[in-house]
């Protein structure tokens, strides 16, 4: 059942694009679904959304969520409610590199506030925003589980630890260069699952 009128929220705009995984990814996806018992394919939803977000444009559009629902044989709304719950799924367009700075207790003790302030100054955006050139998005996130090497941030789920403003500058420089060469920010989910 797909009634366009149900979805009024500005984030939920169905663009009507045809989306599909590449054949290699699709094979991996079907293997992943088989890890769960018969009738419980919905369990594969979180891994699939990770892969979809990564391979189909960096965020979960309604078209992508509908596609994932069709792969698992579940209602689209079952995907929407999950995608809106977890902080690693983005509903909005994101930059090529998503910089997520940990803000919680131990990182704050070690100076994450200064790191975030530095990023805001250098990138000239606030958390939740993307640079106009579409290269960087900045986010504040909760504990990344790396408190012994604080302050910490993740760029496209790669960890960068014991940060200083100088290290951040060097990283941003490298990432800008990567962006020119069209390199991804890290290894992919499909590579991780064997």
């Amino acid at each position, binding site marked *: 059942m797909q009634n366009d009128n149900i979805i009024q929220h500005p984030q939920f705009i169905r663009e009507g694009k045809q989306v599909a995984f590449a054949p290699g990814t699709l094979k991996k996806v079907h293997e992943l679904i088989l*890890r769960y*018992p018969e009738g*419980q394919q*919905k*369990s*594969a*939803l*979180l*891994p699939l*959304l*990770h892969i979809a977000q990564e391979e189909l444009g960096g965020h979960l559009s309604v078209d992508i969520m509908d596609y994932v629902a069709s792969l*698992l044989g*579940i209602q689209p709304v*079952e995907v929407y*409610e*999950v995608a809106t*719950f*977890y*902080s*690693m*799924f983005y509903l909005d367009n994101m930059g090529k590199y998503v910089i997520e700075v940990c*803000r*919680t*207790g*131990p990182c*704050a*003790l*070690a*100076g994450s*506030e*200064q790191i*975030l*302030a530095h990023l*805001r100054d250098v990138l000239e955006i*606030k958390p939740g925003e993307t640079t106009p050139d579409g290269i960087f998005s900045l986010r504040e*996130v*909760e*504990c*990344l*589980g*790396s*408190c*012994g*090497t*604080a302050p910490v941030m*993740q760029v496209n*789920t*790669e*960890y960068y630890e014991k940060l200083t403003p100088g290290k951040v500058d060097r990283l941003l420089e490298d990432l800008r260069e990567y962006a020119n060469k069209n390199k991804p920010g*890290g*290894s992919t*989910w499909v*590579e*991780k*699952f*064997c």
Partner: protein
Amino acid sequence: MGGKILLASIDIPGIREFGVYRASGGYAAVEQALRGMTPAQVGNEVTKSGLRGRGGAGFPTGLKWSFLDRKSDKPRYLVCNADESEPGTFKDRYLMHHLPHLLIEGLIISSYALGVKTCYIYIRGEFKYLVGILETAIREANKNGFLGERILGTDFSLNIYVHPGAGAYICGEETALLESLEGKRGNPRIKPPFPAFKGLYGCPTVVNNVETLATVAPIIRMGGEAYAKIGRGKSTGTKLISACGNINNPGVYEIEMGLPVEDFIYAPEYCGGIANDKYLKAVIPGGSSVPILPADLMLNTARGEKRLMTYESLADGEFATGTMLGSGGFIVFDEDACIVRNTWNLAHFYRHESCGQCSPCREGTGWMERVLYRIEHGAGKMSDIDLLVRVAKNIEGNTICPLGDAAAWPVASAIRHFRREFEYHVKHPEVVKNTSHGALNYEVESMIPDSGTGVNYW
């Protein structure tokens, strides 16, 4: 390096690979259990060892296993809780990163004891790089006949799968984890029924922490009774402690239970003292959810005894003058740390991570955060301090899962032990405003009017 049990082989180069791990005595416990012991005997050894859940609650593992519904004809599941998201805790990450095969070994033996054929490792999505490490370890174990069909030629078969979460602290709560594993939002379930009867897909399920399950392998190797001799009293064995904050050597340490807290903080082989030659102000010893204690109560109990790293000693004095061992996330604050700021920071965390199912937690965490925000940013009232205590009390115990308690305890304990610091913030708004530093200056400028009244936070 005596006394290490879990991390005994961590310094061997290449220990992450199957061959090296096997050559150093790895998977011997699997052979020992599968070839020479019945599942009940394995369970007995774990019970005898006195092993307690290392994820935070400290519930006896053998007892938890004994609750599993063995009469049901449904399949049983073992779920390894690797959703390590408690602020200050990074021990499971360390363990899985360096010794993935130790976890796999523990999972095989535990599954054998519980009669489980399918086991899932639910790992937080941010630990994507660990997914690759674990999957590689599983594939290696499979290739060498320790996983898959008819392991070591016995009738026992097992498959282990890695399942990534996607950034939700609440999914570390066992029933929320099961919901998430079923592909749903991470809303905790009402207990009972407990997962031992109705867990994953409505089947009997055991959920254990990574460290707990990894410890099962050395327990079988050395025997439950020998393991129980290590440690002190009912806190048997060793515990991984992840130390962070203002200390010289942050990192993961395996300690024998019963080590004095003072030694842990100041000994060069552990935390190595407070960084920059400062003084100790306070400690949160078990992850951000447990009560914070000031230095004097942390080093000695209210009765004047030395405080030890055990479940019992840390809880001595209950919440009035005690705290909890929790998950072992040991956060140290030096003399310059602002307790109000830290409490506000943690309140923000719990507000963000509340699943929103129960009103006391959904609303209360937001109220606490906003009140703390205005105290920290120089717009607080004296009555706000008691208001916080009241809100915390109304959350505690009134929610489906312990996240409500976890959000209330840090606030209540910070006010209990550091009320004067809160009062100082209220009495000296100008000082507080000017000492706000870093990123928050942006918010302070835009969100608090100069008059200091009427905080428009949202």
